[in-house]
């Protein structure tokens, strides 16, 4: 009886030691992982901050204005072009609406505007992607 108890105690000791060690190594492993992830997060945050600063730098109004002057064939918006939503004409009735909506898919299903070559002034070099952009040069 006593011998059995001893054996059991030794078995319990060994298994608890193994368990404790496995927990310990798991903890160390997790700890290292946490540190690594923290470092990763930090470096990601740093690069996000860097990219934000860079984005802000490349999208600064000064540069956009210069690019717009160079590549867009648009002029400064006049105040007359700005109207409140109430000043818009009434919605045409459904039949008319269907007619007016129908033509565009025939030109291009993707909804992109026509190529600039169809415009009256094809002599100015223009970026076809920017040409149809609604962005105002401001």
């Amino acid at each position: 009886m006593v011998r059995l108890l001893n054996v059991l105690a030794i078995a319990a000791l060994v298994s608890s030691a193994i368990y404790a060690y496995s927990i310990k190594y798991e903890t160390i492993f997790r700890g290292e992982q946490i540190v690594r992830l923290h470092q990763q997060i930090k470096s990601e945050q740093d690069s996000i901050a860097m990219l934000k600063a860079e984005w802000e730098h490349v999208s600064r109004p000064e540069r956009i204005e210069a690019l717009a002057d160079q590549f867009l064939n648009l002029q400064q918006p006049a105040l007359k072009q700005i109207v409140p939503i109430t000043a818009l004409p009434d919605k045409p009735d459904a039949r008319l609406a269907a007619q007016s909506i129908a033509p565009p898919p025939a030109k291009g299903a993707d909804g992109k505007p026509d190529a600039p070559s169809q415009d009256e002034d094809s002599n100015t070099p223009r970026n076809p992607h920017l040409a149809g952009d609604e962005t105002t040069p401001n």
Partner: protein
Amino acid sequence: METDIEKDEDVNGPPRNAAPWLLRLFTLKRDKGTRRIKLITLGFALIYCVIAGKLIYLGLHPELRQEVHQNASDTVAAARPDILDRNGAILATDIKVTSIFAEPRRIIDRDDAIDHLTAIFPDLDRRELRDRLNSRKGFVWVKRAVTPEQRQEVYHLGLPGIGFMQENKRVYPNGPVAAHVLGYANIDGIGISGLEKYIDGEGLADLHDAGFNLTNEDLRPLVTSLDLDATYAVRDELAKGIDKFKAKAGAAAILDVNTGEVIAMASLPDFDPNNPVDALDPDRINRMSVGVYEMGSTFKALSVAMALDCGKVTLNSQIDARESLRYGNFTIHDFHAQHRFLTVPEVFTYSSNIGAARMALMVGVDGHKAFLAKMGQLTRLRTELPESAEPLVPKHWGELNTMTIAFGQGLNVAPLQALMAVGALVNGGIMIKPTFLKRDEEDAKKDAPRVIKPQTSESLRYLMRLNAEIGSARKADVDGYFVGGKTGTADIIVHGRYAKDKVRTTFMAIVPADKPKYLFFTMLDEPQGLPETGGYRTAAWNAGVITGKIIARAGPLLGLAPRFTPPAEPFPLLAQLGYTPANLPAPGSH
């Protein structure tokens, strides 16, 4: 056992009166190895002595090991919060850069290190680097903020005593736009001017000094009142205007009259906060808050408001402007002399010096002084910007001073101060201190004092609108925005007397005049007359034109909806008093 102890005691001779158990603890059984044991004991004792000695030595000289890190965390550029515009665009932020430092004591071959480092950084001065590496300091910077490639090259050199450290570098993505508001921070992350200095004053510096290792993510960004797009537009139009009219310098701003927020501000020439080598050049001061100037005729708005508010005149009063006003040997002339009685609106639209002086005299010196003090024109205006200037107030303020100050001569104030006062004149009569931080109207008006009656404020709006329709502010009357404005042209004092050929022109405009939201301001230093302006250099021809362009360009950016039908009843209080549309400006009469 007992005998052994006795013998041992005899040999070593410990005091006999010591407790026996203590003795037993320290006695060894004598055998053949006693000598050897003694030797080993001695050996261990020596080792412990050495360790103890070293500990004492390190304890007495703690800086030896920690010095490097201590110095580094003192000098490394601290994190600063981002500065954002009112819509969230970044005006200033931190980026991480690597800096290279050296621990001179640990460098083995200095000449070799200097050779290699100067090969990688050609801009490093050899002699200066040698001096730094020869210093007795534990820590010196070799080069701040290096590129990743340079970092890699230095890393591959594998020089002992050379290390890398992550640092924060302050960047201003928009360059000189809003430079005067932002100020700048130096390479150690300490705010030197503008809002950067304000941030330090608000407790950031204390936190850093207390040793908190803050990161950029811990700090709440500072949201300013500026609108980046509008600020750029203002600066751009001002720069074009200065170029066109060959002015020496200029300043422009947009103020939200209901919240006191400065929406845009530019003062040219300015500087690039990313490279602020010329930021301290006296020509590049912030003309809006650091420069004090005679505001010229724009000050007449204050004089007219004062006379109306005191009830000394009404809009129908007639002011004698038949001939120049003499006081002692001083004569006040009108630039557009009419030689007749003028009504109050005419005094305003003809910008009559005589009329303004007479109105101020009706109120009297003390009343005038008290009114200007109430309007904040006699004391230094303090905003978040650390840079401010005291107005130049005449020491002995007599009747003559009151007469000249009434039309903007003899009292120098900062333009921002004048903006604050005109803002109060048109926003319904509430004095709101300008701010560079975002806030809402409720917050702004919480403890803002009322300085003039709502009716006076409406009269001022009416006068400024009238001036834009038929008076000197026509050049800024942007169709669709119902602009009101006032010009000001002041001769510049050179060597104590007014120079006839040098002027400073100012222009103030309110948009829209029936319910003002924004106050636009432009100032030009020594603009020249151009052939297309008929040689005129007065404010209407330059500052007025620029303000008009700024309004047309910044208005849509600020979300101001243009209206092409004039408001049905722009001035309801005046209408109640019997000022029918007959004596209101006819819409579109310009």
